[in-house]
């Protein structure tokens, strides 16, 4: 879009030429080819906190204390100094301090005595600048089975979600879940879409929908799972009162018989409606089963063929369908959810072979299932390949739309096709790709240095997803995509002189600021807490 590579020429050109339609952000991003974080300050003396993330608008740096009980928020600022000489001057001594780049705003204690802040969980509501954090008590693996709970899922005594206003650190609202399990690692069990929050309770198989109001309150909107509509519970309760009176007369007759059986029976009846084996399946499971039935029914036109195909495909696997549990949930838009179902022992394993997984699109308003796929379905893969951006729904920040995916970047698509051709079996490849569905919320960094149309870099060493990487001693190169394909900048995560001890494994995490040429790399060995913090910026 620019004819010259020189930044001054580009600025002049920007004054007179309008960008191609709806490509103004792409053109503005070209300036990042000229302004790169090429200078590194190694081993900056920084406070001993776990740095988590820059917020999407770049206003805050979120970090947690080492004991996982406090939240410390910094404001990223820029180094300022003035010199009298024109010649190259080394940076002043105070430049290599953490304070020159980040000013601490406040420190808030979020967790009480036996709770710990989950340091992998953070969601940001950008319109109001609210942050959502989670604290939890210890995990109990062999929990007492409760009537509604799925066996095999661990239980946590108390999980609290805390909504905090990041401007000043005031806690606005809290929501606690008791004896429940929500997958908090890397935002996997929670999804934020604009102001709607979906929390998946794995243990009780319920999707709690909450709305974040402008005033900062968390309002319960719906709980999908046993009941699909808000008034289902009322309806069932009112009709169950008639049933209960019939049952009571039956019980009185059997009381005269064997007493042991009756106490168990009484116990079952006196529980609330969703009891174990003898009553209805949960609402969403009913919707799912009826959709599968109707889909198989509609495949054939002849009645006998229908019954045969139903026997083979539906009734043979009926118990497996009934045993499916919800593993992950994502919003597709305000009314539709993408739900991943799997078997109880499947879950979040990386291998997709042995455990069947299914995806369903659920419309919350009409409580209908719209589509149902198995995890090796090729048509779901085609939709994933073409419309991947619509799966990673973005909230209101404009530059989250420009995170590279294989639907919006030719280079990423080429890489995907290369992997597709290299794969041995297409269905294995499809399963591997669909493992990333449903997407986790806010897990990609919006920094333009990860834009594949601007830079080429080694995806194994660094990428937009905020996960720890194995650190290497060689610097990570960012090579420009346009002609000439020269090295633009390097990021070396290790200490300047290299590590003396080559045996210990080091992991490295990178935090890139969304729009400034500023990045932090944190390198730590697995067992020893002190970590090396480097700051990379444009000098």
């Amino acid at each position, binding site marked *: 879009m620019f004819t010259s590579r020189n930044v001054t020429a580009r600025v002049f050109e920007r004054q007179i030429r309008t960008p191609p339609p709806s490509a103004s952000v792409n053109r503005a991003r070209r300036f990042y080819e000229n302004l790169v974080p090429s200078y590194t300050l190694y081993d900056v003396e920084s406070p001993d906190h776990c740095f988590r993330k820059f917020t999407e608008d770049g206003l805050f740096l979120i970090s947690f204390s080492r004991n996982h009980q406090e939240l410390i928020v910094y404001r990223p600022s820029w180094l300022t100094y003035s010199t009298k000489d024109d010649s190259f001057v080394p940076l002043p001594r105070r430049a290599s301090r953490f304070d020159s780049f980040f000013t601490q705003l406040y420190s808030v204690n979020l967790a009480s005595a036996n709770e710990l802040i989950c340091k992998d969980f953070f969601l940001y509501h950008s319109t109001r600048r609210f942050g959502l954090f989670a604290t939890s008590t210890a995990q109990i693996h062999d929990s007492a089975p409760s009537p509604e709970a799925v066996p095999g899922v661990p239980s946590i005594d108390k999980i609290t979600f805390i909504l905090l206003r990041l401007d000043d650190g005031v806690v606005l609202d809290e929501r606690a879940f008791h004896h429940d399990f929500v997958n908090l690692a890397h935002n996997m069990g929670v999804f934020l879409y604009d102001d709607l929050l979906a929390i998946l309770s794995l243990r009780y198989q319920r999707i709690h929908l909450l709305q974040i109001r402008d005033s900062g309150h968390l309002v319960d909107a719906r709980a999908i799972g046993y009941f699909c509509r808000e008034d289902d519970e009322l309806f069932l309760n009112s009709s169950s009162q008639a049933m209960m009176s019939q049952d009571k007369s039956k019980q009185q007759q059997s009381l005269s018989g064997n007493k042991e059986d009756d106490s168990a029976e009484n116990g079952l009846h006196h529980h609330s409606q969703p009891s174990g084996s003898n009553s209805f399946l949960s609402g969403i499971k009913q919707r799912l089963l009826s959709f599968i039935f109707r889909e198989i029914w*509609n495949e054939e036109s002849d009645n006998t063929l229908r019954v045969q195909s139903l026997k083979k495909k539906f009734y043979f696997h009926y118990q497996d369908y009934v045993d499916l549990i919800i593993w992950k949930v994502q919003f597709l838009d305000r009314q539709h959810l993408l739900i991943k179902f799997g078997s109880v022992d499947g879950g979040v394993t990386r291998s997709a072979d042995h455990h069947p997984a299914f995806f369903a699109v659920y419309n919350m308003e009409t409580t209908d299932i719209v589509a149902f796929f198995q995890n090796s379905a090729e048509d779901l893969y085609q939709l994933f390949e073409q*419309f991947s951006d*619509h799966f990673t729904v973005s909230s209101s920040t404009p530059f989250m739309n420009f995170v590279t995916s294989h639907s919006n970047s030719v280079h990423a698509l080429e890489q995907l096709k290369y992997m597709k051709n290299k794969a041995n079996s297409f269905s294995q490849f499809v399963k591997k790709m669909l493992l990333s569905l449903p997407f986790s919320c806010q897990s990609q960094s919006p920094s333009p240095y990860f834009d594949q149309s601007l830079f080429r870099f080694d995806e194994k060493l660094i990428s937009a997803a905020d996960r720890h990487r194995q650190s290497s001693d060689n610097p990570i190169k960012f090579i420009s995509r346009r002609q000439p394909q020269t090295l633009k900048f390097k990021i070396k995560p290790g200490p300047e002189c290299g590590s003396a001890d080559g045996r210990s494994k080091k992991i490295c995490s990178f935090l890139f600021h969304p729009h400034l040429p500023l990045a932090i790399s944190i390198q730590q060995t697995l067992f020893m807490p002190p970590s090396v913090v480097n700051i990379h910026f444009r000098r």
Partner: protein
Amino acid sequence: MASILGDLPSFDPHNFSQHRPSDPSNPSRMIPTTYRPTHNRTLPPPDQVITTEVKNILIRSFYQRAEEKLRPKRPASDHLAAEHGNKHFRAAASSSSTTQGL
């Protein structure tokens, strides 16, 4: 030159020396060609309102797929309601519980 452009600076002082400002008393003969339709088959309906579709393309493709699956079987859909009663009966008698990859 008493031109509309005035005395704007330019690199070469002889630029724009040939420019004659348009004189309102002597209108130009140039009439731009206009094209008119010869039929009205392509007129939009008088009450047409164009708005953006609320559902995004991904959701639209899910619904389209569901429509396609239902479409050829429409004449048989009235049998569906009658068969629902069988479902509960069958469920109680379902036998197989072996895990089978689909």
